[in-house]
């Protein structure tokens, strides 16, 4: 077990190294120049030269990379070129919690809505209920999230005035306020996942319900809800968790658009503005955090298998 865990961590480090070199290189290769953006339209060539040197952008690629990497590892993430923010505070302390909150709320919505819908259509297979949820799921997968976001804003925010259309309130400080602000963005981001989970739950549950142990449970006279929710759903947990872990990338990708539409100051917005402004260091920090998150969650998924399936636990 320990050896396995160490191996995983080693893998993680290698992946993070590759990710960091790749983003660093790609950003340098992209056309556009932070110095020009920083100086706006009114500047002299001397100011340009001076700023390039000041920002250390005249040094060779490898020196710049090594410099950045040593600092990053020691927790010194640097200061952004233009806005002069401390990147660690900005990215890790401010932006990351917002994205994590948004992602957790969306995941919660997706599971709380997707699983029951899937169960419903599996149990009522080939009925109007099933067809209805299939249509919903298909629409959900096909609907672009930014458009859905704007529609939700106009309907629930502006026309009905039920929910705030933008802004972030930390659920750690004010849980209900946080939830209230997260409902529209959470729904927007989770539509795709609700649809996916519904379909996945339906397909796997139908299969599970045909297994002998379900028949056995029914034969023992257990009530219908217990058969489905305890014996059935428990057995679809593993494929569900696996898919959710793998789809986390899609979810993080979705936060970029959702955060922009709902004006949430998370990693998505941070990355967008940093890429447009060629804030190399900020992009780098954002990518590293995202990569870490992705790898971390998949590590957790791996570690959760023995909990979800007793057969995978170590035998003494």
């Amino acid at each position, binding site marked *: 077990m320990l050896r396995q865990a160490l191996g995983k961590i080693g893998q993680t480090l290698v992946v993070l190294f590759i990710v960091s070199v790749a983003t660093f290189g790609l950003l340098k290769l*992209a*056309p*556009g*120049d932070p110095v*020009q*953006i*920083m*100086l*706006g*339209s*009114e*500047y*002299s*060539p*001397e*100011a340009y030269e*001076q*700023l390039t040197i*000041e920002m250390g952008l005249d040094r060779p690629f490898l020196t710049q990379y090594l410099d950045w990497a040593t600092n990053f590892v020691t927790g010194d993430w640097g200061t952004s070129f*233009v*806005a*002069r*923010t401390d990147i660690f505070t*900005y990215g890790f302390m*401010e*932006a990351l919690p917002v994205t994590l909150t948004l992602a957790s709320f969306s995941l919660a919505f997706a599971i709380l809505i997707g699983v029951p819908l899937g169960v419903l259509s599996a149990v009522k297979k080939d009925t109007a209920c099933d067809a209805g949820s299939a249509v919903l799921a298909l629409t959900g997968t096909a609907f672009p999230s930014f458009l859905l976001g*704007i529609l939700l*804003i*106009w309907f629930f*925010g*502006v026309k009905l*005035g039920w929910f*705030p*259309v*933008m*802004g*972030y309130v930390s659920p750690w400080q004010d849980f209900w306020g946080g939830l209230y602000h997260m409902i529209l963005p959470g729904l927007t981001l989770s539509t795709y996942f609700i649809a996916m989970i519904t379909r996945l739950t339906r397909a796997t549950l139908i299969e599970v319900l045909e297994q002998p142990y379900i028949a056995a449970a029914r034969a023992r006279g257990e009530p219908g809800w217990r058969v489905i929710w305890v014996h059935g759903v428990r057995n679809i947990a593993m494929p569900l968790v696996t898919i959710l872990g793998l789809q986390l990338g899609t979810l993080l990708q979705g936060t970029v658009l959702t955060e*922009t*539409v*709902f*004006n949430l*100051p*998370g990693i998505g*917005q*941070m990355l*967008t*503005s940093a890429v*447009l*402004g*060629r804030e190399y260091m900020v992009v780098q920090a954002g990518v590293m955090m995202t990569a870490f998150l992705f790898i971390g969650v998949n590590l957790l998924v791996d570690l959760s298998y023995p909990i979800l399936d007793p057969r995978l636990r170590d035998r003494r």
Partner: protein
Amino acid sequence: MTQVDHKKLLAERLSARLGRRAVLKGLGAGIVAASTAGSFPAIARAQQSGHLKIASIKVIDTLDPHFTGFLSAIQVINNIHNGLLKITYDGTEVKFEPDLAETWDLEDDKTHVFKLREGVMFHDGTPCDAEAVKFSLLRVKEGTPASPHAWKLELLSEVEVVDPLTVKLHFSEPYAFLPVALNGSTGRAGTIVSPAAVQKYGADYGRNPVGTGPFKFVSWRENDAIELEANPDYFEPGMPKLERVTFVLMNEASTALAALMSGQIDGMTDCPMQLVDQVAKFPRATLYGEIEGNYTFLGMNCKRGPFTDINLRRAAAWALDRDTLVKQAYFGRAQAAFTPISPPMTGFFDPDIATSGRGQWFDLEKAKSFRAQAAEQGEVEVTYMMAERGPVGTRVAQTIAPMLAQVGIKANLELIEPAAWVKRRNEGDFDLYDFEWVADLDPDEAIYPEFKSDGAWNFCGWVNTEFDDLCKRAQVLLDTAERAKLYHAAEDLLMDEAPIGIMTHMPIYKVFSNKVQGFQYIPADLVNLHTVSLA
């Protein structure tokens, strides 16, 4: 020019409020009122109430007035700081009036004397005196790191502190552009910052600005909000009226509009043209906006490729149907331009420009006759570089391409990313591009740095020494009528040789909910909130 004329002219440029006699003698009634208010700040204390939330959609780079290149930053900076001068607008005329100064006078045509208000304090409690003014001006002129606005004070030869409240600026030549250099444009050479704060924060001053303005800086959270709170010791009596101001930083204008309509925010510092119709129909908000000091144009590369041919450039310039452009690219909101000098430049803009025969306009016959004189008579294929940037994105390029086709110019539209666009424009790697120069309040700023031979912003690479000469002569004149003549001549050269096809002057919009009262609109893209209150 005699000294008396000179002073008269300066007086005319100064405020109606202070009046000519007041300016000349420094002792008018207006000044007594101002200085009384200044020496008894207790009287000036206002009851502040209300929390204004206003969306800011464009990028804000830094809150350091001496280093910013963005008007969106100036909108915030102006609420934290004051300048030696300020811009005012009475509905017809844009003027420059003393702000931190009580009087602005000329000793001779190269020496400006500013008498400062008494008792003005920075938010950190240090006094705003002549030394602070000197510190700020020199920080722009020769500080390290170099300010991108240093060129505006190039002619400043000495800053003399006469006494704690009097400062004399000596220039090496008469400098007509001074009011704009100090207080117009993107970035403010004449905005006064706290020397103690600059020493304390160094390069991070832009994240910790300390001025004398109606609001104090509280915090700036990236992609989230900039918070300000009232400065109860502000020197203008009865101001500010608000207790708190939040600039909500947003990337998506339509979300900002939705937030305004649902009452989550009280205004927008900028309302993009495509949303204006929607805002106008919304009963609970008021739209502010007029044609401001700017011009949009089609830029042609005079250094390489087919547009080195002057007749091809002229053909393109005269083939642009400005009315169609206004309708299709600018949502019917802009105004066709004939030359770069724009309507708010009082005294320089010719109200009868449309019938004067000066400048460029749409005339297909004329365009075709120029085309017939071009060296290349077959179809000319060029690259038109465009990006999703500026007030209307790629709409201009898409509207122009068929117009150019009518004179045998096939424009291949190439969509690139904004940062790449800036790089290629600055390196002259294009045939055609469109752009807008904004915030021009003086003709010099509107045309000279943009088109001076080998100038840093002359991306079209047009060279004309006669143009340079006219502008240089105009720079050292203080008589508006005389200056206007020279700038008109310079503009005529520019329009005739057509490195650019001039297109439009644009209105810049702001919107406030009807709860917001007392906003004073100034056609220089400013959002000064000291007079604003919430009902």
